[in-house]
């Protein structure tokens, strides 16, 4: 190979003849090409634009361009009362509205220092975990589509529809719920809700296994994800990764366990990390496996919640909601484990106003996506699609 290095600056075209490389052409002029992927590209999961510098099929740099969906969430918050922010949080990560509301409610409750009824806590966890499953189903289904597997997508959306139906029954909306309020819930769940949720759990358990086999038993899917986009654990932490992304890199970290909130300390569930037998730790397949296994853990959590939940007798979902939400002066940074990672809210109150002085949403997708530049270097263009899909971004949360 040494003589190849000495023949000039440009690329060469070689062929192999009986163990020897024969040069067919040399000093071929190659130039870097700029390939704009998005903002209207189906594989970028929304309005993300990637400016790729490519050398042939290889990506030398992929720069994410954001902001197409920027709606000044934080500026809006400064102009409305605390409870009025809740519907806006739905629109951050619109695939996991319940979880976003939950995170926001927790932050303000910490500032107010109030306790909420125990039944409300359990209902919150149940709806949040249902929403987590729905969100992971979208992540897994669309990831399949990105890599050419269409059937799992249909299966995912069939089952997600049941969850959306349940959540609609409880809250009145399919995706943008406004259900978890500061200090409680908008209303108690309907009479037969928990029974139906249990039925769903029994129904979904074998379906999750089937879905898992459909993808990890698919050789094309595995070949496209195995060993692609590897992120070592320490770099992942330095990038601020969280959620399934961080666990995919083998860090056993889950805010539900490591910084517990609500009733999670009472509940037994496993923090899923890849075992390294089926995937290279930190690659796209690991992240997919973590999401798939997390759905089963969510089912377990839901089952335990239904067992432990206090009865609805004498329960008023709004009993702990203050008449006028005006926290004392102070600031808080509070976070919750969302399907995509740590969703944090920094809220500052001056003690006089009923509006937050500053309300910042720390978006998990925003932080996870920031590693794109490093992840994509030296990858092939089709692998870039596999990497973006595995990050599982929701642009509503990235751009806020």
């Amino acid at each position, binding site marked *: 190979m040494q003589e190849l290095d000495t023949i000039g600056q440009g690329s060469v075209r070689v062929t192999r003849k009986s163990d020897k490389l024969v040069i067919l052409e040399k000093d071929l002029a190659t130039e870097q090409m700029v390939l704009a992927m998005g903002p209207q590209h189906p594989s970028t999961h929304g309005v993300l634009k990637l400016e790729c510098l490519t050398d042939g099929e290889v990506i030398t740099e992929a720069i994410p361009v954001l902001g197409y969906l920027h709606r000044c969430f934080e*500026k809006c918050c400064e102009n409305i009362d605390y409870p009025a922010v809740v519907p806006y949080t739905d629109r951050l990560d619109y695939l996991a509205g319940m979880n976003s509301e939950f995170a926001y409610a927790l932050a303000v409750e910490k500032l107010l220092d109030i306790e909420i009824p125990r039944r409300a806590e359990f209902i919150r966890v149940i709806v949040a975990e249902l929403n987590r499953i729905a969100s992971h189903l979208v992540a897994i289904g669309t990831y399949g589509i990105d890599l050419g597997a269409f059937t799992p997508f249909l299966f995912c959306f069939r089952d997600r529809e049941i969850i959306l139906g349940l959540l609609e029954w409880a809250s009145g909306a399919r995706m943008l719920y406004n259900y978890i309020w500061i200090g409680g819930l908008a209303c108690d769940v309907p009479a037969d809700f928990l029974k139906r949720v249990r039925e769903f759990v029994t129904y979904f358990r074998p379906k999750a296994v089937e879905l898992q086999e459909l993808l990890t038993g698919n050789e094309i899917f595995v070949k496209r994800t195995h060993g692609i986009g590897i992120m070592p654990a320490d770099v992942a932490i330095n990038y601020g990764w969280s959620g399934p992304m961080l666990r995919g890199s083998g860090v056993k970290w889950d805010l539900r366990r490591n910084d517990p909130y609500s009733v999670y300390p009472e509940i037994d569930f496993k923090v899923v990390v890849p075992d390294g037998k089926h995937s290279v730790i930190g690659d796209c397949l690991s992240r997919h496996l973590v999401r798939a296994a997390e759905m089963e853990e969510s089912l377990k959590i839901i089952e335990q919640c239904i067992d432990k939940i206090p009865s609805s007798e004498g329960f008023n979902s709004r009993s702990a909601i203050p008449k006028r939400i005006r926290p004392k002066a102070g600031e808080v940074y509070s976070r919750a484990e969302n399907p995509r990672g740590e969703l944090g809210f920094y809220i500052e109150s001056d003690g006089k106003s009923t509006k937050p002085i500053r309300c910042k949403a720390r978006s998990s997708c925003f*932080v996870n996506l920031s590693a794109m530049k490093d992840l994509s270097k030296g990858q092939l263009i089709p692998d870039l699609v596999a990497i973006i899909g595995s990050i599982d971004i929701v642009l509503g949360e990235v751009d806020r």
Partner: protein
Amino acid sequence: MEEGKVVSQSVQDSAAAYSIIHERFGAAVSALDANETMPFFEVVDTDRWVEIALFMRDHAKLKFNYMACLTGVDYPAEEKVGIICNFESLAQLNHKLAIKLKCARKGGSIPSVACVWHTANWHEREAYDLFGMTFTGHPEMKRILCPDDWEGHPLLKDYKVQEKYHGIKVPY
């Protein structure tokens, strides 16, 4: 810290971490505000921020390897803008600490810590975009959420939105 008040374990951990930083940097950092919701201190001498950041990340008893969040804040009364960083020693020592930095409202700058924590890279760009302070030493100091040719910094309290953007009426 007020006497006779019950202080939670996490605040005690934060106070212990703070005392190590205070011991090393003395007057460059302010006293710790040990409140229950978010214990924090301020870096008074912002020129030493990168030095403090590296110390925090690498010291064996601090190990703040995870920057959870970086928030820009406007202090119109003091004529200042600032940032608030939330740190955590993830999967190692598990303590948390928040740090505040301030700079002049017009043309102020803060040293960038994007070389210490990758998380800071995009967050600092966001803070610049929305508040207008620059971060010296940042690899790519440009807007991230707003378009590159947007006027003003939207999260400043006295921000007035531009009338037209490329001929399109902006305020509705």
